[in-house]
C-alpha cells in the first residue's frame, strides 16, 4: 500500500530536549492508525508533525512520495487534512456556523455549504442543534460538532487527539459507535492519538506505541496488543489488567 505521509529520520526538539526521534514512520491510505503511549511520550507532538502543524527540527516529511519543504507547507496541502482535539474549541456562533467554517474558509458556494452542513448534522444526529450557540452545548454535543466540523471537509487524513477522553462513559460509547460507522462509510484515513486502550482497541486497525519520543512497536492493533515487545509490555500490560482485549 502506498503511504500518504512518510517520516524520514524525524526529530523534534524543544528547549534542548528531544521530544521525538523517529527514523521511519508511515500513514497508509484507508487505515485507522492508533498512536498510544504514556503521558508525555510525544503522541500529540507526533500528530502535529504528521499534520504539518508543527515543523520538525530535522529530517524529511513526504506526502505521496514528495518531500514537503520544512516551514513552507502549501495551503492546499494543509487543507487536505483536518484535526479534532480533546477540547472541542468551538467558536462563538451557531452550530451550523461552526460546522460550516472549514467550507467557508475554502470559499465554497453558500448552497453547497448549506447542503453539506445539513448532511453532516444529520449523520452526527445533531440537526436539532443547528441554530443553537455552540458555546452552550453539553460535552458530548460539543464533541459531535467538533467531529462533524473536521469531517465535513472530507479530509484525506483525519487527525484525532483524544477527542473522547473528556466525555463520560455512556456518552463516549455512543459517540464512538456513531463515529466508527461514519468513518467506515466515508472510508477516511484517520490517525487517532489516545492513552485509552479501550478506545484504541475499538477504533483502530493499526497501532503504534510511542515511549519517550520513539516508536517502540507498530503493527496490526490486535497483534500489538496481544504480543507486546519488551519495550511496550510494561505499559500495555498495565492497561490489560483493566480492559479485556475482545474486539
Amino acid at each position, binding site marked *: 500500500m502506498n503511504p500518504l505521509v512518510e517520516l524520514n529520520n524525524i526529530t523534534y526538539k524543544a528547549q534542548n530536549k528531544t521530544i521525538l526521534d523517529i527514523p521511519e514512520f508511515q500513514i497508509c491510505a484507508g487505515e485507522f492508525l492508533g498512536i498510544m503511549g504514556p503521558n508525555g511520550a510525544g503522541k500529540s507532538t507526533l500528530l502535529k508533525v504528521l499534520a504539518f502543524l508543527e515543523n520538525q527540527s530535522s529530517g524529511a516529511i513526504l506526502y505521496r512520495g514528495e518531500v514537503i519543504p520544512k516551514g513552507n507547507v502549501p*495551503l492546499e496541502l494543509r487543507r487536505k487534512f483536518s484535526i479534532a482535539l480533546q477540547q472541542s474549541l468551538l467558536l462563538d456562533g451557531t452550530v451550523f456556523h461552526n460546522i460550516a467554517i472549514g467550507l467557508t474558509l475554502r470559499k465554497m458556494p453558500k448552497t453547497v455549504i448549506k447542503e453539506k452542513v445539513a448532511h453532516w448534522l444529520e449523520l452526527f444526529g445533531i440537526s436539532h442543534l443547528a441554530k*443553537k*450557540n455552540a458555546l452552550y452545548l453539553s460535552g458530548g454535543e460539543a464533541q459531535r460538532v467538533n467531529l462533524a466540523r473536521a469531517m465535513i471537509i472530507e479530509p484525506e487524513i483525519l487527525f484525532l487527539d483524544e477527542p473522547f477522553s473528556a466525555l463520560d462513559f455512556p456518552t463516549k460509547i455512543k459517540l464512538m459507535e456513531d463515529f466508527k460507522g461514519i468513518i467506515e462509510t466515508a472510508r477516511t484515513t484517520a490517525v487517532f492519538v489516545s492513552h485509552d486502550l479501550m478506545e484504541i482497541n475499538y477504533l483502530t486497525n493499526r497501532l503504534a506505541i510511542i515511549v519517550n519520543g520513539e516508536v517502540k512497536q507498530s503493527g496490526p492493533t490486535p497483534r500489538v496488543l496481544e504480543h507486546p515487545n519488551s519495550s511496550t509490555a510494561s505499559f500495555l500490560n498495565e492497561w490489560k489488567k483493566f480492559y479485556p482485549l475482545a474486539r
Partner: protein
Amino acid sequence: MELLIDGIKKAFDMILSGDREVFAITWLTLKVCLISILISTLIGLPLGILLGLTRFKGRRILLLFINIGMGLPPVVAGLWITMLLWRSGPLGDLTLLYSPTAIVMAQILVSLPIVTSLTCTAFQQISEKMLLQIKALGATRMQTLIILIKQLKIAILAAIMAGFGRVIAEVGAAMMVGGNILGDTRILTTTIVMEVSKGNFDIALALSFILLSVALLITAALTFLQQRKRIS
C-alpha cells in the same frame, strides 16, 4: 435640586432654541472625539493584536510603556503636545497649536494606550490550542485574524468604548493645546470648566447634560454593536 432642574431646563432651551454656539461646540466635540478614537483604533487595534499574538524582543518593555500610558494624566499629555507644537518645538512649523488638530493629537495620546492595551489583553487570552485549531481548519493568516476579531468583538468594542470614554471626558489637555478659543477650539468640556469659573452653574450644568447625552448616544451605539446577535 433647584440648580439641577434649572440646568435641565437650560439644556432643553439651548437645544430647542437652536443655539448656534452650543451646536458648534457640540459638533466640534463630537468631531474631535470621533476622529481621535478612530485614529486610536486604527493604530491601537493592529498594535494590540501584534502584542497579544506574537513574541519579539522588546515586547514586554513596549507593553510596559503602553500600560503606563493608560494612566497618563491628560495635563501631562497636553504639556507634551504643547512642547511638540510650540513655535520653537520639533513640529512648530506646522502651526497646529491652538487648533482642533492639536486637541485630536492630545486625545490620541491619552486613548491609544487604552485601546492598545485592552486589545492586547483580549488577544493574549487566545489559547495556543485555539490558534492551532483555526490553522487546522485551513485558515490563512488573514482568515485567522478575521475569525479572532469576530470572536473577540465584545472585548475589542469594550476597548474602543473605554478609549472613547477617556477622550469625551478629557479636559486638561484640550484646554492646554486648544486654548478654548470660541468658534475654533472650544469643546464641551472646556466650555463647562470656563462657565464654572465664571459662576454660570446653570449653563455649565446644561452643557454637562448635552455632553452626557452625546456620550450616552455613542456608547449606546457601540454597546448595540457589541451585544447584537448573541444566540443562546
